[in-house]
């Protein structure tokens, strides 16, 4: 994958001890760690412990990461390993007669962890792009994303915007979002992924 320039900059600042950069990194990647934990159906306390260990390992390792682009993959692998460790302990407790680890059925999450990384990166880019939109766009799109979607008359009343302007404004805001640097970086990554993956065909279907 191509490096997202903003992540490279963040990792560099973190290595210099910048807490704000670290916070940003956690904001960006906590959904990835969380979503992987969710696959293993751990208790809330176990998920909290897995998270703690992953973040502490990241603090320890981040200075040694040679490629910032490897960070999502490292986080996903580390999270998965920590989840499995907890899961094995829980299973040992509940089923004393469980077969040894090498005879256990293949981990159902293994095949899709790569997809989880791609989704998380795409979501992070979308959120980063969204955060940089002008306030009017931010308010409008936030309202339009609520469940159930509000009627335009309600949007108009809340935002003080003529009903007739909502449609065009929505289109303009989404277009700004689409052309954000954050999304361009992610779409570039996806284009490269296609070239690498399609001949193998095993990720499809």
């Amino acid at each position, binding site marked *: 994958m191509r490096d997202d320039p903003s992540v490279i900059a963040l990792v560099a600042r*973190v290595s210099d*001890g910048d*807490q704000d950069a*670290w*916070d940003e990194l*956690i*904001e960006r990647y*906590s*959904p990835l*760690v*969380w*979503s992987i934990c969710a696959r293993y159906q751990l208790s809330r*306390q176990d*998920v*909290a*412990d897995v*998270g*703690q*260990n992953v*973040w*502490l*390992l*990241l*603090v*320890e390792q981040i200075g040694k990461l040679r490629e910032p682009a490897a960070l999502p993959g490292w986080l996903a692998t580390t999270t998965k390993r920590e989840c499995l*460790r907890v899961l094995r*302990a*829980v299973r*040992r*407790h509940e089923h*004393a007669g469980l077969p040894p680890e090498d005879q256990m059925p293949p981990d159902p999450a293994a095949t899709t962890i790569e997809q989880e990384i*791609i*989704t*998380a990166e*795409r*979501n*992070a880019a*979308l*959120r980063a792009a*969204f955060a940089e939109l002008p306030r009017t766009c931010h308010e409008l*799109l936030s309202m*339009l*994303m609520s469940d159930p979607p509000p009627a335009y008359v309600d949007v108009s009343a809340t935002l003080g915007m003529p009903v007739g302007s909502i449609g065009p404004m*929505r*289109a303009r805001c*989404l277009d700004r*979002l*689409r052309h954000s640097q954050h*999304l361009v970086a992610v*779409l570039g990554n*996806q*284009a490269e*992924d*296609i070239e690498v*993956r399609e001949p193998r065909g095993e990720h499809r279907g």
Partner: protein
Amino acid sequence: MSIVAKSWDDDDTLLAALKQAVHARRDVPPEFVEAGKSAFAWHNIDAELAQLTYDSSRDSELATSVRAESASIRALTFSSAHLTIELEVTPDSLVGQVIPAQSAVVTVQPRSGAETVVPADEIGLFSIRPIPPGPFRMYCRTDAGVDVLTGWITL
């Protein structure tokens, strides 16, 4: 992939993707994110991480826990490359040992609240009293200068 990327040309699909992204972030509990942020306090501390490698409440055979019942003492083991910390839960305190046996300083860090510092004697024995009421971790510095930090412990 190409289908996903291309379809962002469509406003409805892009808005749906954004909604999914915003929800994915909203699904993460605030305390999970906060714990991640506070982990950075350890960035300038050159400590090894000690993982929980044994917990009697999870790892012991069923027969043992049935037999032990009322008299059961919970035992935990944390291991790092250079140091092992064993911990036993007694009714009113935690009794631990640093292995290989050596004197050290053990700092008990609750997730919230003040730290306490207890010494480990020359054979590595230490005790923590009272038992921390909530999640905590131990930071151990041996006299030889090895720093080890355990993961979070909830009793």
